[in-house]
């Protein structure tokens, strides 16, 4: 699909994050996996080895680990952000390191949609000396046109 067919947005930060202080936009991560399924092996290893380190390094993210009830649900990492977005990433058949990388990537994202960003820049003060308009450098009506001085 072309750019016009798919949704797009402008580069933005939630609540001007970073201007005042930086607030991590990831609120909580839920790791839902089955204790016996084969594709949840990476998730189980993550919980055993790397989850506590991750939780210690990110004290502002609440990490929940819980079983996925119901027969045959794929293991999933659900991320909830401050602006209300919920993103689910399938972690079936991934190793523990990959899950750590994925969790870190989610922790560094804001909750804004992952769609085409129209411009890679944004500014609130686009003009310092004043926006040009067709009358900017034209003389005003009040400018007096005097006789040209003769060269001395």
């Amino acid at each position, binding site marked *: 699909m072309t750019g016009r067919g798919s949704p797009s947005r402008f580069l933005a930060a939630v609540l001007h994050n970073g201007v005042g202080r930086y607030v991590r936009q990831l609120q909580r991560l839920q790791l839902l996996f089955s204790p016996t399924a084969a594709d949840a092996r990476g998730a189980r290893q993550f919980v055993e080895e790397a989850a506590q380190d991750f939780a210690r390094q990110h004290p502002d993210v609440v990490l929940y680990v819980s079983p996925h009830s*119901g027969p045959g649900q794929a293991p999933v990492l*659900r991320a909830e952000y401050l602006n209300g977005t919920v993103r689910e990433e399938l972690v079936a058949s991934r190793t523990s390191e990959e899950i750590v990388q994925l969790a870190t990537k989610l922790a560094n994202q804001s909750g804004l949609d992952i769609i085409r960003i129209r411009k890679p820049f944004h500014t609130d003060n686009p003009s310092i000396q004043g926006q040009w308009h067709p009358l900017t450098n034209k003389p005003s009506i009040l400018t007096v046109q005097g006789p040209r001085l003769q060269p001395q």
Partner: protein
Amino acid sequence: LLLRAARPLLAGAGRGTALGTAPGTAPSTAFSTAPPPEKKRWHRAYLELQRLQAPPQRRSEKPNWDYHAEIQAFSHRLQENFALDLLKTAFVNPCYIESEEARRRQLGLDKDAVALQLQDNTGLAEQGLRFSRAYLAQCFEGAYPELPAKGIEALVNFLTSQELVSYVAQNLSIQDLALCRDFPTPPDVLQRTFLAVIGALLESSGPERTGIFVRDFFIPQLIGKDLFEIWEVVNPMGLLLEELTKRNISAPEPRITRQLGVSTVLPVYFVGLYCDKKILAEGPGETLLAAEEEAARVALRKLYGYTENRRPWDYSKPKQGLAAEKAISSN
């Protein structure tokens, strides 16, 4: 923060055809205990419709919620050291206490059990509001010394207004942690809760850190906003005359500097204001009156130092202790 689920982990059933259906069940804000994926397509469509039409629920009523852990993460996220009991008090709203007591009375508990041992957040909210207003007023007096008291009051009122404070609180997900009777949380409750959080920070960490907190969350909301969007001035020319008499400058003379399309439907006039034949400001407009008013507004912006190309706010240096204490003592 890491938490283990209290439920015993189930012995998983076989995988079978479920792998094909698991990506098929479109995950939106679903519960983690999803119903078992049905094999009939119409049944799956029906369950999905039920899930989408279910009324919105508080986050605390959905699975995977630990209040204490969330409160701790909240204080880490804002990079502040809160006294946790004060912070928990800050999230308790009076409507919640009333509704809980009514519910307990309905369940038929005796009077001692009905009364909740919780304090509500009105005291903290008032403290937070007073401190924020005083601190913001002081910031603006320091940054824009020419701005009159009414302008500073308008800016402070805008920044502590219900709309803005509830918007900021919504994007800091205070509505998840706030205990209140209605869902979704009404904006005045969000405003009260956020101001109570500021009050709690004031009591735990002192006025300096709270001042930096207020600066970091409220002042960026002025980015991209014009002074006269926030401060409604009905007669800018009259205000300009007052300001100029205060500075002993003679009254401005308006002159047309540029004009385009005078005889058309969309004329553009540029009116310049001259004091003692020196240009003060120039402003455009569709009619001569509108252009003169706009020129007066441009002149006021220049006089008050609130132009669009002014130096951006300085977030680097921590505010001096004296300034913040003056804010407290002037309450």
